[in-house]
């Protein structure tokens, strides 16, 4: 039912960007878990636009990430702009979001933007201390890099320095 509307919603979601990393769409991030469209008899305000109720489930990246509230609002605004009025945005915590859900296209865009994309999570998501992760410099592609700080300017990033080209860069840490 409503496959065409559902397809349109997915296309619209591609236009909603992460406010902190604006090259990534919410689909690249892998935070959209579900899109449901159902018919509704209630016409939208103003009488124009699709007669559909849209329910979107997203999952938060980090518990305290302020971008999540902005993302929910941006999704809502994007749909309103296209005439949808009956919109529900739900948050789902389980299964917990992981950087493994980021698309390959998303990782490519991140790197082009100057942020090292996340390594596969099994490599590093542990409580073991003083482990050095092989993170590739997004500029010169060297693996000869070092950690500056495990926490960066946003919850999802840590700070690295390339020991070859000497540039400091952000790493979207595995989660």
């Amino acid at each position, binding site marked *: 039912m409503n496959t065409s509307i559902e397809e349109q919603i997915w296309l619209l979601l591609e236009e909603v960007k992460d406010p902190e990393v604006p090259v990534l769409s919410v689909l690249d991030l892998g935070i959209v878990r579900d899109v449901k469209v159902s018919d509704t008899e209630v016409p939208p305000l103003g009488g124009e636009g699709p007669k559909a109720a849209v329910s979107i489930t997203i999952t*938060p990246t980090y518990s*305290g990430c302020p971008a999540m509230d902005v993302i929910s609002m941006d999704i809502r605004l994007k749909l309103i702009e296209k005439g949808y009025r009956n919109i529900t945005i739900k948050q789902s*915590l389980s299964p917990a979001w992981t950087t493994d859900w980021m698309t390959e296209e998303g990782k490519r865009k991140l790197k082009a933007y100057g942020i090292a994309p996340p390594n596969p999570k099994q490599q590093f998501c542990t*409580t073991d201390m003083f482990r050095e992760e092989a993170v590739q410099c997004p500029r010169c592609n060297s693996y000869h890099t070092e950690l500056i700080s495990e926490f*960066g300017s946003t919850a999802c990033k840590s700070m690295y320095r390339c020991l070859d080209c000497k540039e400091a860069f952000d790493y979207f840490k595995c989660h």
Partner: protein
Amino acid sequence: MSTRQLFAYVLQLADNALILGQRNAEWCGHGPVLEQDIAITNISLDLIGQARYLYQYAATLYNGFSVEEQHAVNALLPRPWKAFNRELQEDDLGMLREERQFLNLLITELPKGDWAQTTLRQFFFSAFQYLQYTQLQNSTDEQLAAIAEKSLKEVAYHLRWSSEWVIRLGDGTEESNRRITAALEELWMFTGEMFAPVAFETQAAQEGYGVDVASLKESWLNRVTTVFEEATLSIPKSTWAQSGGKEGKHTEHLGYLLTEMQYLQRTYPNAVW
């Protein structure tokens, strides 16, 4: 199932996260170096985010209670909210409850002290929270299990970061060792409370939605021992422990913390931005 106990259990988890999050946030702009200022405030943000999920859940539970059930938790509800004539919300629970209504562990409310005290406290708490949330993922309560699953990944980073700091300071210079040894003397007697269950925790563990905290002590001590060996610190001999936080009996420090944290909501009730 006793809904009163469940409500208290959720609040206790939330209060731990909020109060420690608030304490750590005091470092914002005051960290020893920029990177570590950002690290501790990131941890703060994670904890406050976790507190939000838990307060949201507590509010949802309350709003779905029967009149009798609501009456049973009356003592835990914020007084100003009762005049609002609307459903309970997350901010009411965090920003309008009084000191004696908070159920957080005493260790979370102690002053931030110096960097040694902050990182050692974070280490003790994260090592505990990591074990607690690992078990809570198996909770019979779906929402608690989901919150634990989500939060655990963040806690793993907190634990690793704070463990490294304990080692760095303990096995660092004479001065850093002196500082962390002093912090250890100050904090140790507040660690026992984590593993001493109060009535609502015992009930929670029995009914399967909560964690048997006493059973976590051995694993916690193992982690502490491993880190302390690297840090050239020894576990204090004293086993005397101060408790009371989970029953609303706090140190003098909590009142000051709440006064600052709750100022806005108390001065401008229902303010939003």
